[in-house]
């Protein structure tokens, strides 16, 4: 089993105009929420390239949270619609990769909804806890790619020869 001291690590991509401002509001309102989230501020949730999500998951995150303005309220008119469309198909793609459903989540949180930031983050942490660490790169034992990439160094090559 995994380390008993393990805590879920969430990478969150929040849009500048709504969700990040809501997180700010949660802060100035002194709302307490789980400290398991690392927030990346982007100008729009539409800026979240699916590559960012995959890179976070492959790089050690246990979950990814995307926050944007409510549909119809996007500062750039339709950025969040693009996010929604990408997210729908990305979820299906990630299921094909064997990723559990709660690990990637999209929420619309307006600048006034500081309390929603608190609720969503707390809830997501509790959903990730029973799933355990994602540890994507370490899943495949000696045949895993970490081991494979290590073999590319000249020393390892010489040892193999």
């Amino acid at each position, binding site marked *: 089993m995994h380390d008993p001291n393990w805590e879920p690590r969430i990478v969150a991509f929040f849009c500048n105009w709504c969700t990040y401002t809501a997180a700010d509001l949660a802060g100035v309102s002194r709302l307490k929420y789980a400290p398991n989230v690392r927030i990346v501020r982007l100008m729009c949730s539409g800026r979240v390239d699916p*590559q960012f999500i995959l890179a976070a*998951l492959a790089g050690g995150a246990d979950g990814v949270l995307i926050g944007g303005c409510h549909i119809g309220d996007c500062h750039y008119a339709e950025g969040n619609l693009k996010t929604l469309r*990408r997210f729908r198909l990305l979820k299906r793609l990630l299921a094909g990769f064997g990723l559990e459903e709660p690990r990637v989540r999209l929420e619309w949180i307006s600048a006034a909804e500081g309390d929603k930031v608190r609720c969503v983050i707390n809830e997501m942490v509790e959903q990730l806890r029973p799933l355990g660490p994602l540890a994507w790169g370490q899943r495949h034992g000696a045949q895993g790619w970490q081991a494979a990439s290590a073999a590319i160094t000249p020393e390892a090559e010489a040892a193999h020869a």
Partner: protein
Amino acid sequence: MPKPKVAIYWCASCGGCEEAVVDLAEDILGILDAVDIVFWPVAMDFKKSDVAALPDQALFATLLNGAIRTSDQEEMARLLRRKSRHLVAYGACASLGGVPGLANQFSREQLLRFAYDEAPTLGADRKTRPALETRHNGHPLVLPELDETVRSLDQVVEVDYYLPGCPPTPKLTQAALLALLSDNPPPRGSVLAPDIALCDECPRKASKPQDLSFSEFKRPHQMMIDAEKCLLAQGLVCCGPATRGGCGAQCIGGNMPCTGCFGPTSRVRDQGAKILSSLCANVAAKDETAIQRTLDGIPDPLGTFYRYALPRSILRRSGYAAAETTPK
């Protein structure tokens, strides 16, 4: 002065890359004026021991096609790396993992179980699995071991050049060999094809709308395809916007959408994520139900977007294979 020595080898591949070399046709004579082919199992009778007997770095270049998915392929990749000054990942499988890389959706145990126990074929009821070692008439016989994960060549050994394509075109192959032989070879690590998306060289470029908009995704067998108009504008999943050009848009010429075999350009890390991003953003629907209905037109996103590049993608393989490993 002796001519530079060249080797051509295959790993997990279909033979199409060998065919691409043969497709050089009479141009191969010009290449043979410049180099000696000293190892090419599909066409010439040299053995592994002949390569092993060469001094290290004795080969000017090796064109290696196919992904790496067995112990003997890994051994040959390491041997040829040691013997070659330039190792070229030749074709989509060596560069990106290719179609064999789609096996990374499953664990080795799932693959073996299907192929030897469950597939409807003669002898499946015997449930015989390949043994790594066996004896036949007193002689020991060994088979290579299947890896858990399919890898691109550069995930096993250092690669100097990449020649993308399924298969690479004869034109690019010839240009690559001439470039390597020239006094001014391309920088190591180069992909020997143009670094711009296929749309740029597409003959239908002019008919690509400024604002693409998909009200539904269609598959080639479901429609009569207009032979002049941009395939994306017709609602087909064409991977051209996220795929490197250089192929001469041959599939488009055959009135079929691009499936992505040239891999991503240098600015993109994950080809599948980028195709997904581009297509989805241009879906016309604005409410959840309609968006879902449009996206249902892509039944297999993983197989469609990562047809050639799953092992080279950010996630590389399905994540839950470890729970399903073959007992040793």
